[in-house]
């Protein structure tokens, strides 16, 4: 084996090792649908979600926590099936792990101070999406993140907005649509 052949083998092997986008797309779609469904349910049935002082807080903490447990299980299972973890995959995992922790901190702080966390969470989501899009070089995710940040800024200037509907609009454009774009992206093309 000469040096040209060695270089060829190295290049071919590195090209074969890809960061698969589909599981990340699945995560976005899952969270998009979950948060949109929760927001719409809360909007149309406030008497159920807010039947006592703590019920809304439990609703917005418990269901996403169950979602986190499910997506963690799905990601571990998918990772084992792929059989390797790329450095890019690890970076994305850390970023979304930090987002999960920050989301929990924002929710707890907002409960203590009796504040609505929607704008803070959507802003954090926008930043995390933009970072993810830039890292994996996927423009639709980057665009979704930037649009979400701009949308959150816009909500600060418009008084009396319903935050549940803000959530629906923000998550649809910032997470659900980019998630579908990722999930159906043909990686070999």
């Amino acid at each position, binding site marked *: *084996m000469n*040096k*040209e*052949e*060695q*270089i060829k*083998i*190295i290049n071919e*092997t*590195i090209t*074969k*090792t890809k960061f698969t986008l589909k599981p990340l797309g699945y995560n976005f779609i899952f969270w998009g649908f979950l948060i949109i469904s929760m927001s719409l349910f809360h909007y149309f049935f406030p008497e159920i979600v807010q039947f006592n002082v703590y019920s809304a807080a439990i609703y917005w903490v418990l269901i996403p926590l169950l979602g986190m447990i499910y997506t963690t299980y799905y990601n571990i299972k998918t990772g*084992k099936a*792929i*059989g*390797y*973890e*790329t*450095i890019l*995959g*690890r970076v994305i995992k850390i970023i979304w792990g930090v987002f999960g922790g920050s989301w929990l901190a924002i929710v707890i702080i907002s409960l203590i101070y009796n504040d609505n966390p929607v704008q803070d969470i959507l802003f954090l989501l926008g930043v995390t999406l933009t970072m993810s899009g830039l890292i994996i070089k996927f423009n639709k995710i980057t665009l979704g993140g930037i649009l979400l940040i701009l949308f959150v800024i816009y909500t600060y200037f418009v008084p009396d907005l319903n935050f549940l509907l803000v959530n629906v609009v923000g998550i649809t454009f910032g997470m659900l649509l980019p998630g579908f774009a990722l999930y159906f992206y043909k990686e070999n093309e």
Partner: protein
Amino acid sequence: MNKEIEKLLFNPIRLKIISFLITVEYGNFNALIEITDASKGNLSIQLKKLNEAKLIKIKKYFQKSYPKTDYSITKKGRKDFECFFKQLELYNKKK
């Protein structure tokens, strides 16, 4: 160039293993079979040689009662491969 590394990576299977592990955090045996196109027996031998040269590390564990093995590159392996690759690049530029 380190003669030992040059000799070790002269084998295409071993070169594929190291080239793969340099780009990932870890890889399991099945992923390595897919990447290298080697038989199980041959792959095991090459992995053992790389482990003996301290270029890769092996993590064994049980998953649902089945033994599993993950492979990753060591600091020495990364450093040696980078040195090896730089030499190849230098040769390529000179040509």
